[in-house]
């Protein structure tokens, strides 16, 4: 293992899958000559040529639909959306076509597409470029929604997504791209739908995914200094959701805090909370606590933006509420 950035880990996954399977191609805005808007596809056009790495026009509905149609015909398209904010324009092809074609055709069709790109806020990009979309896609039966939080998971899950026979929504993060971690070399697959305990602990379960994982771990370290021992469960996949690992952890610790960066209403945390309270009602000593972003469009000003975002401090506060500990 060597240390790679999240961005390099994704690049390596794409590189390996392009090399492995001639049916894999990468298409999206700026993925080729520009090396990717966020440089995830750096060097791939040069290595694989314009048949395999294709610059698309700015037509999200059109090129996502192209990918869905090509996947229906047995290819393995990887469609990059420059950010998930722009994929709203393609939602019809994802929710109405990709997610439903297998069911509507009675199993005659399938759609092995991977649609990927950065999700969530970076810094000072204001409301239209700072949104978390995972609950929206997790709502649709037929889709799988993958949100890795470490470079190793990014590599292993992207490779699994590309090989998966069903449509996969793969959500990255601009803020994670430069972060580093140990990543296995060569063939490394992380199964879709398996959570991972990133920090073991006995007092309280903190559930997170994607970039929120780092925030949760940071909060857990702060709490450790106060003698509170958190277990951090990284869901990694929102749909399918690894209920077993989640419930086992909460049954062990007896308390649950869910950290999500997006808005509170109808976010994934609401579903997770429902699962936890039903499975762990007998052992919970306090309600499941949700730590989220503020219920407002993201403001531009740094002064306001930081107030709108979930933080390690808010995790600390949430865990103390769950454990009924006075600050």
């Amino acid at each position, binding site marked *: 293992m060597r240390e790679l950035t999240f961005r390099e880990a994704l690049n390596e996954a794409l590189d390996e899958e392009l090399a492995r399977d001639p049916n894999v191609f990468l298409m999206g805005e700026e993925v080729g000559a520009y090396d990717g808007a966020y440089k995830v596809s750096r060097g791939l056009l040069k290595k694989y040529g314009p048949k395999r790495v294709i610059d698309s026009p700015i*037509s999200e509905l059109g090129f996502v639909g192209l990918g869905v149609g090509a996947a229906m*015909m047995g290819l393995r398209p990887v469609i990059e959306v420059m950010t998930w904010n722009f994929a709203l324009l393609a939602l019809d092809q994802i929710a109405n076509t990709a997610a439903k074609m297998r069911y*509507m*055709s*009675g199993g005659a*069709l399938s759609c092995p597409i991977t649609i990927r790109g950065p999700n969530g806020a970076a810094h000072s990009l204001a409301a239209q470029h700072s949104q978390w979309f995972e609950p929206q896609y997790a709502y649709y039966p037929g889709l799988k929604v993958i949100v890795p939080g470490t470079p190793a998971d990014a590599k292993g899950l992207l490779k699994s997504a590309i090989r998966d*026979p069903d449509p996969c929504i793969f959500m990255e993060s601009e803020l994670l791209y430069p972060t580093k971690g140990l990543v296995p070399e060569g063939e490394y697959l992380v199964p879709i739908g398996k959570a991972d305990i990133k920090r073991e602990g006995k007092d309280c379960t903190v559930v997170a995914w994607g970039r929120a994982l780092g925030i949760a771990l940071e909060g857990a370290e702060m709490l450790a200094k106060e003698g509170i021992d958190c277990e951090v469960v990284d869901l990694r996949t929102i749909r*399918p959701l690894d209920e077993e690992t989640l419930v086992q952890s909460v049954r062990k610790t007896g308390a649950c805090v869910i950290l999500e960066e997006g808005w509170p209403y109808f976010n994934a945390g609401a579903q997770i909370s429902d699962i936890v309270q039903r499975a762990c009602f007998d052992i919970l000593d306090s309600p499941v606590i949700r730590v989220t972003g503020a219920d407002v469009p993201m403001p531009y000003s740094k002064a306001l933006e930081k107030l709108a975002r979930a933080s390690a401090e808010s995790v600390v506060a949430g865990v103390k509420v769950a454990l009924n500990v006075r600050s």
Partner: protein
Amino acid sequence: MAQRTNSLAEKLDREALLKMYRQLVLIRRFEERCAQQYSLQKIAGFCHLYNGQEAVAVGVEAAMRPDDYLVTAYRDHGQVLARGTPPGPVMAELFGKATGVAKGKGGSMHLYDIPRNMYGGWGIVGAQIPLALGMAYASKYKGEDRVTVCLFGEAAVNQGAFHEALNMAALWKVPAVFICENNRYGMGTPITVSSAVTDVYKRASAYDIPGVWCDGMDTLHTYEVVYEAVERARRGEGPTLIEARTYRFRGHSMSDPGTYRTREEVEEERKKDPIPKLRAFILSKKRAKEEELDQIHEEVEKEVEEAIRFADESPWPEPSELYTDVYVDPIWPEKVHA
């Protein structure tokens, strides 16, 4: 420009002409019986009949190779029958039965027959156009010489999906033919109310691809124009936009009484019925006798009757089918649904 009739239709042999005639009659009779079965509540939901537009599906089918791909919108009964799917499983799908082409999970708007290269059956206006782009893109990617033919109504050309897909289809010269079935009404809204440009074929100029129209009430003219476009695509020369000018004799769907059209207009269009038109051609060219054509009607009558019987007697889907076909790899344990 309107592409004029050349001699292609003249070269069609007796067998090909009788096949086309049979398809027209089958679709017409199938749809008439669908209307009846709908009123008997054997068919439910949205049901968009194809009466009047049969020349398009049949002309298109004649112009395609069996291994070419077809994709269309929700007015899809005619296309799946033209591709050769037996009427029994199609009727069974409309009845919601387990023996339907999609096991009763799709219904009227979602008819598929993948072995016959019929790829649906899609319910959102214009959404099948980017899908067709991807299908044709895949053919080019794989190096196949198979063409994708995409059908859509004239209302779909005002969707962004149409323009995005045509731009990329032209840019990358994919082997696709885009055929607009212009029946002049998007549900109840006439094209003159919805579109700044009512000659749909002219929209091809925006993407510098050929734009042609054909008489969509004339099976042979449709065949000739589509054939040219399909072969052009097969030669790698890129996509064509065809406007097939047609008319639906019935309402938009079974729930539409069609009060936005005058009785005179509908009567006038009914005079252009594609079935007598092809019949007259066949008889004038002495490719078949009256009695032979009459016999086709009789055979089709029985075939559709048999399809209804098949659908009626078929079982409903098992409750266990509710959760199948959501994923290739099922993701949820059963307990979640308990």
